[in-house]
């Protein structure tokens, strides 16, 4: 039987480094996903995920278990996501951002290639990349709310705890984030494969 988060936290506080590694293994996928969906690329996501765990390890002595460990970890994660954006604001983006950054000419040529892909898997991947690209264009607070709700599946109450705001604010940010994303999808329908264009 695996130990609960709380048990592992107690062990970490008692100086057992291996217990923290167990927490890392438990949460690495979820936090890497959050970081990836927030930053939009694997390199930054990997750096960010590491920072999250290091910060959590350093802050562990001050963790009073007033919230669950999961909520506390996501609080650290979302704080670092905000800082990450400030830190990397001058850094050029890579991958998909480079292709779509100029909306004239080059984008059309790329899109033509995408739509001609015969593999459904590839189409799906391309649609994912297009959604990711538009997600990254959302203001950060809307983006965090949307990621936490629609990708990570947190409840409004949990999101309010993580983002340290009221439930009403969560509701408002989610609504605005979704509407903004919907407008972007409509305005960039050509980014998507025929299957999603019909949606």
């Amino acid at each position, binding site marked *: 039987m695996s130990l609960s988060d709380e048990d592992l936290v107690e062990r970490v506080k*008692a*100086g*057992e*480094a*291996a217990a*923290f*590694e167990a927490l*890392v*293994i438990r949460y*690495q*996928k979820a936090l*890497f*996903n959050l970081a*990836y*969906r927030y930053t939009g690329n*694997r390199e930054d*996501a*990997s750096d960010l*995920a*590491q920072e999250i*765990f*290091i910060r959590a*390890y*350093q802050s562990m002595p001050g963790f009073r278990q007033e919230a669950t460990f999961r909520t506390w970890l996501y609080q650290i994660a979302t704080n670092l996501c905000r800082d990450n954006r400030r830190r990397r604001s001058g850094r050029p983006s890579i991958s998909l951002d480079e292709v779509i950054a100029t909306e004239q000419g080059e984008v059309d040529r790329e899109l033509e290639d995408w739509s001609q892909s015969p593999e459904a898997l590839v189409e*799906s*991947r391309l*649609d*994912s990349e297009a*959604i*990711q690209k538009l*997600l990254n264009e959302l203001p950060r607070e809307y983006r965090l709310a*949307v990621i936490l*709700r*629609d*990708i990570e599946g947190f*409840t*409004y109450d949990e999101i309010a705890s993580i983002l340290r705001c009221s439930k009403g604010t969560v*509701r*408002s940010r*989610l*609504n*605005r984030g*979704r*509407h903004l*994303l*919907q407008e972007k*999808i409509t305005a960039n329908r050509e980014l998507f494969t025929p299957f*999603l264009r019909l*949606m």
Partner: protein
Amino acid sequence: MATCDWLVEDELSAYLDRELPAARTTEVEGHVAACVTCREALAGLQVVRDMLRTLPSVTPPPHLVATLQGRMSEVRRRQRVGAERRRVLWPLAGAAAAILLVVFSLNFLGPALVRHVAGNGQAGVTVALNEETRAGTGTDSVSRLDMDARLQGGGRTPGSQPPVAPGGGAVTSEGPGSDGAALPGRVGGNDKEGDKGAGQPQTKPTSEGEAAISGQAGGTPVTGPAAKGDGDSTGSVSREVTAAGVQEQRGAEPAAPVQTTVPVAHRASLTLQVNNPDVARNRIAAAAQTAGGRVEVSYTAAAGPVSVLVPPERFTETLETIKAVGVPVAVTVEEPDLSAQYQQTLSKLQSLEKEAASYRQQLQGGQGTAYVRQLLALVEQQKLAREQELKNLEEQFSWGVINITLQGREPAAPGR
């Protein structure tokens, strides 16, 4: 997407998430069924949500955990180095403050302030100023220095050494207290213990052998029973917890016990009702010094908290002496036995040492693989964690702690 005026702007999104109250959910449900605009808006939101939900889960890079392990080892190493630096630098800062205070006292305040000078190697910095001094020239500066000196000695963990003058001497200056209970002042240094840089209550047994065994460079004192050398993760350490206490041996050192203390923590807290908090504070400090301990925190403000650290063997008698200073109320005493916890941690550490030694042997014999090296690194990390745990426990039983809250029963004398 626009909704009709019937709905509040974000209600449709919350309805989609089933986050509306039950009654409102029913109302919205009925409305959406009848309103084309809201139905279309809801469908649009559903598309966005479904697109986000279908995003594939991304797999973290395989090296993430291994990279993190390396970085966490570095974090732990820095924490250890930082703690060690603080342990070394705090006494130096305390010593510097003490020197400044002596120089200042001798040069500017004159002999009226320093009543008594004697060197007996006692640690601790205590400055008690009476109203005569405070009313005189430079009152503000003296008060500030007084507070600085007290704060230098405060807020540190039990088991760490108090701020001392070079050579372990202590400085105490005082004027004639109005109640006649002020402490004798001292300026001391260059005594035998001081030369070792001790600055530690002298009831703790110390010896040259102990210094060698502890592995503490530069005469840094052993801060508690079974204190061990930091940074030595490869040497073999053996300790014993007996009815008499904890004994430590390292390598081929003689089997004679280095230090012996029963691994029981001693903590007390009490409120003392006193006529004059200043006098009471001085008497408490005197009791602490007599027992070979010190006052850890003592603010000049009336009824401020006082924390006294005393050697465990003098805990009970010192507590009684302190209780006699005033009328004790709400006295609580805790003396948890830490032997089982200590022994358990020690056993784990010893077992890890054996495991590490076996891996090292394999590597030295040329049989080591990358896997064995990884195992050794993991075991070394676990060893460090256990050592820290052991150190934390040792700090708990190295000193008895008595926390006193003073309650004045009458106003302080005019001029205070």
